[in-house]
């Protein structure tokens, strides 16, 4: 016999779909089927069931082999590593719940560490831009109910956020958008003819790295000022046409992704895209929203912010919080050789950092807390496998529009496995003793 659990939250991307249904065995030990999720989400749920999963902590030996150790030994090792380090980096946090992040922040505070989340290589530059110019935005339901102009700039939801267009942005029939897709105009800006671009009313195939120029040209076009004939490979007529299409809507939104956050100009691309949005509010209603990647990177930023005052790249080494990407940001800390211990949780810098930074991780004492085998666990001294958050344990998470959604536990983890939060509490309590903290 089996039972079906409804309203399950998908712990993959920032879309944080909460309409998933999963079929589990009566004893809640096996997960059989997944409905409503995209192909990536289904894989995430089903992979948790794989038989070859590592279920106990492993410490790398001198000969390079792994030795299985207990969670207690793993917690001791981790606490001692953090206690000894002068400038430990505690990185990740985006694939775990806010409760675990909260315990992690206590650990960071006691050990006076640098803490950072995956925004560092995703939307960190967006946060810098927001700090410079603000952010007119909205929840995804506003887009569903009102938006008639949708711009995807440097993002490819067809691949990265597969259900975004069907749940929120393009297809749904909302309160004021009864005709669904028919009531919306879609503009895509991308150097490639992506599967998202193929659906667009207008595709601006921009010259890579020139987003700042094109966005500037749009602002000039809004004001009807002089423009050069071609900007970023786009003829000025096409730019003016796009500008008019944006102005003529009732409610528009720009969704943007790593095409702008990771290309030359980085934060400035977002900065000026936000300026474009602000300009458009002189003519109509317009919003802008980052397409956040990890399902709870947003939550990590929220917890950092209300506890330390900054959303990422926080340096606690002096005993109080400091923030300045370029100095306190993970990639710079690693590439500049400022870190003497690496603690990774809920992310995979080994796969997603430039190799120069990964080499630094391999050079220092390191702990990797992750249910999967990853390049990070592959270069770390200690690998601590944990339960899958959002599958084998619940906890609060934040969607890309900052809406909090409480994840659900749908199946039991393999016998004897701990959650992120449980393991972090063990580390915190040991660290308190080592540091004699209150």
């Amino acid at each position, binding site marked *: 016999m089996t039972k079906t659990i409804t309203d399950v939250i998908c712990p993959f991307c920032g879309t944080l779909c909460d309409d998933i249904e999963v079929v589990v065995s009566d004893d809640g030990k096996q997960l059989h089927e997944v409905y409503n999720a995209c192909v990536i989400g289904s894989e995430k749920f089903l992979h948790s069931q794989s038989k070859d999963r590592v279920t106990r902590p492993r410490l790398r030996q001198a000969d390079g082999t792994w030795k299985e150790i207990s969670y207690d030994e793993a917690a001791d090792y981790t606490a001692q590593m953090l206690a000894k380090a002068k400038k430990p980096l505690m990185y990740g946090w985006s694939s775990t719940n806010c409760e675990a992040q909260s315990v992690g922040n206590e650990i960071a505070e006691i050990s006076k560490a640098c803490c950072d989340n995956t925004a560092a290589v995703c939307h960190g530059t967006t946060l810098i831009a927001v700090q410079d110019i603000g952010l007119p935005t909205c929840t995804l339901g506003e887009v569903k109910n009102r938006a008639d102009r949708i711009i995807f700039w440097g993002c490819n939801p067809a691949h990265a956020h597969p259900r975004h267009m069907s749940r929120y942005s393009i297809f749904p029939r909302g309160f004021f958008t009864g005709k669904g897709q028919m009531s919306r105009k879609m503009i895509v800006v991308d150097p490639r003819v992506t599967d998202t671009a193929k659906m667009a009313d207008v595709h601006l195939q921009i010259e890579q790295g020139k987003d700042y120029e094109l966005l500037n040209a749009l602002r000039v076009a809004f004001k009807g000022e002089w423009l050069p004939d071609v900007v970023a490979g786009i003829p000025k007529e096409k730019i003016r046409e796009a500008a008019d299409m944006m102005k003529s809507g009732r409610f528009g939104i720009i969704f943007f992704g790593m095409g702008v956050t990771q290309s030359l*100009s980085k934060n400035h691309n977002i900065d000026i895209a936000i300026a474009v949005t602000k300009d458009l509010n002189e003519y109509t209603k317009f919003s802008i929203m980052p397409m956040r990647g990890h399902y709870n990177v947003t939550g990590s930023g929220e917890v950092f912010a209300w506890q330390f005052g900054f959303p990422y790249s926080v340096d606690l080494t002096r005993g109080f919080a400091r923030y300045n990407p370029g100095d306190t940001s993970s990639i710079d800390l690693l590439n500049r050789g400022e870190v003497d211990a690496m603690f990774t949780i809920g992310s995979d810098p080994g796969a997603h950092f430039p190799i120069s930074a990964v080499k630094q991780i391999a050079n220092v004492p390191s702990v990797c807390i992750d249910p999967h085998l990853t390049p990070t666990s592959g270069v770390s001294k200690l690998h601590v496998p944990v339960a899958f958050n959002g599958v084998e344990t619940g906890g609060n998470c934040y969607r890309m529009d900052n809406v909090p959604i409480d994840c659900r536990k749908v199946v039991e983890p393999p016998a004897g496995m701990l959650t992120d939060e449980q393991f972090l509490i063990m580390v915190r309590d040991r660290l308190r003793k080592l540091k004699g903290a209150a």
Partner: protein
Amino acid sequence: MKNPPALYLEADNVTPDGFAGKTAAQITELHVHEGNTTSTLGKYFEVSGNAGATAADTKIIVKGDVKKVKYLGMKMSAGEMVIEGSADQYVGAWMTGGKLLAKGNVEAFAATAMRGGELIVEGNAGNYLGAAYRGDWRGMSSGKILIKGNAGSDIGMYMTGGEIVVNGNVDVHVMTHAEGGKTIVKGNTKSKLGGQLVDGTIIVFGNIETMMPGYKPNGEVELEVDGVKALFSHYIGDMGERHKKRKGAIVYGNLYKKI
């Protein structure tokens, strides 16, 4: 410098203000930080000579390899400081007065939100030279910066006053969001000059790889810059950005490129 640190040192006490009124012995006891550990200046430096009674009559000469030392001259308000080699980030950050000379290179965030005084770098400067701190709309407001080598990206971001002169080349983004002040680049520039600039002046002697579309050609003018008289093509902008009005007329930013 002795016992070079494994990581980086934070030496925000090494300023005329921090030394003023102290004897060599007292200065030796000032705190420096390596990661989450605190020790004294004496662990890393020999200190000779006493400071003046005030910052204004204090002169500091920093010898030895301080490539991995941050915050030298931070918040200095007066007096003089010479760094004989190269230093790391935040050299002269938030400085309000005095004279700071670095004979080597300086890393990012030098002269952050500078409010007065003079910074001279004989080597190269890093990114965010004379820029605002994150989130702040109050960048460099006064004072003078001279870089004899090259400078990085984002120089003069949110600048509201003062002057930056770079004898060499600069990387992308110059005076983004500026509302005043002047930047002179004697060498070459790349792109994104004066983006979102409300007011202020950029003068370029070398070439500009890519011009911002928000800058509108406005004829040619003869200017005398740093004693050099030459013909410049004049652009106004950023035409996409808001601008103040003076006597009813809109005041645009100015970009001059030597012909």
